[in-house]
């Protein structure tokens, strides 16, 4: 599917670019799958980071990376994200006595 996407829509010519882009799209798909399928809080974070990895690979595959300043800022953003989400994992662990997100079901409807 990623291959068709890369080949038909993006019209990538060179083989190296094509391969890298296909891999990056697959990585993004796998990342989102991990997020949906796993119930542990930590694995959800891992899924998100896998997705971010895929996006960076896509960026460097098709356009040779983002402008320098933007990349630094993105890196900083993800760094802050990880720190903040770890604080939340700590809180979830303390309050729910486990980091299983399927225990969160008091808010519905």
């Amino acid at each position, binding site marked *: 599917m990623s291959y068709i996407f890369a080949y038909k*829509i*993006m*019209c990538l010519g060179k083989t190296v670019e094509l391969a890298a882009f296909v891999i990056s799209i697959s990585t*993004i798909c796998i990342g*989102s799958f991990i*997020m949906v399928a796993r119930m542990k*809080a930590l694995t*959800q974070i891992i899924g*998100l980071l896998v*997705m*971010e990895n895929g*996006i960076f690979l*896509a*960026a460097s595959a*098709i*356009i040779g990376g*983002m*402008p320098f300043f*933007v990349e630094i*800022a*993105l890196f900083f*953003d993800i760094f*802050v*994200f990880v720190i*903040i*989400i770890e604080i*939340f994992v700590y*809180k*979830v662990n303390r*309050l*729910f006595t486990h980091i299983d*997100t399927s225990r*969160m079901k*008091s*808010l519905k*409807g």
Partner: protein
Amino acid sequence: MFILLIILIPFVLSLLALAIKKEKILGIINAFGYAILFGMCLLFTKNFISGGSVPINLWKTFYIDSLSVFFILTTAIVALAASIYSVGYIGVEVKEGVISARKAGGYFHLFNLFCFTMLVVPLLNNLAMVWITIEMTTLVSAFLVGFHNVKESIEAAWKYIIICSVGITFALLGVIFFYYTSSVNAGINSLNWTRMIEGAHLFDHNVVKIAFLFIIVGYGTKAGLAPMHNWLPDAHSQALSPISGLLSGVLLKISLYAILRFVILANIALGYAFCSKLLIIFGLFSVAVAAGFILVQRDLKRLLAYSSVENIGLATLGIGLGPYGGIFAGLLHIFNHAVVKAFMFFCAGEAVRVYRTNSIFKIRGMLQCMPFTAVAMFLGLFALVGLPPFAIFISKLSIIISAFKGRYYFVSALMLIFIALAFAGLLHHITRVILGNKPQTVERPKELLSTKIALLFLGIFILGLGLWTPPVFCDLLTNCQKIIFSFAENPGH
């Protein structure tokens, strides 16, 4: 330069919040800071309009046109009301021992950082930087959602941060696709919006279509459009009430602003039909889903949150109907909804504070308990559902008019049905909350002065804009409409 001074205010205030220990003094300083910010914004808007609305481009990093000014003005108004409301709200929470004085300082620190990030978003020229600042708003406000450190609020904060981050990651992919097509097809090696707009007519059609889909799903998650709205009622119901007002009033609109920037790019490349179709579908679906959930709601703040989903859907629908005057209507609706929803959340916050529950079945007889807030909430309810003398009536009507103008009869019929359903649901639930006999256990509290001031301040806009639109504001909206269409009028295809 002046505008940069404006956005420096919340930053300075956030540092002050760490230095000052007394929460009462801190709250008052905070409110004064935002009053100054609001005054400066008004002055800036007036100068901007009288100077012919020429876009300001500072060092290629900041780009300010009518669209940015409109969103900054909305943010400033809601932020001022929220900061006034916070003075009393946080004071009482500290007095009752719900939060400690040290945490109150933390609250004001985060509040200011949150406002700072939201004010920066409309100023930036670089689309990746816009993405980063929008992600920052999520990260900062997650602490404000999970402020109480109990199971429900942590759950809401977790959902909020995870769903919004994933959504916005897709938006980043969309940004990268836009960058790809602009560098390959148009030869512009820059993420600056002003540069990309020059070559937008050369963009590759398929890539732009895919990219715009990613953008609308990604930023749509943050804006609370229907299939991706799950975080919204949780976060809004668990956040502190001033923050609920800010989340619903401004945060959702800021990501709509990001979508608008891409709508302009995609319009030039594809013509309006493609974006229009997508925006109408998402908007209508949001209205439909929200109308259903409003009818069966049992939680007062969740009810208001679903009403936000409905209204954001209407605004999106308005923007989708752009060629028929829908942009004007949509933006007017964004402004009106921001003001009214903040107003309603402040009233609901007072009710929740006094009754110590969110449940609609337990909050009864507000009129006996706190007359001023109850009357305000009643009027706010009429404004929210769109009854005449209030401002939302005009914007809803003009969205419907533009739908008829565009011969979208089916869409407008469906929209009217869903609006009527939401109208019935809101009226049913909220009148039950306001009228009736109050429970014996609840004593009559003292109504806070700061709440009254905040409600009156927002009330001026709710009623005033319904009766008379200031020419400056009208010019601003017309200019926004022009920005979205002036580029699209000379397509390259």
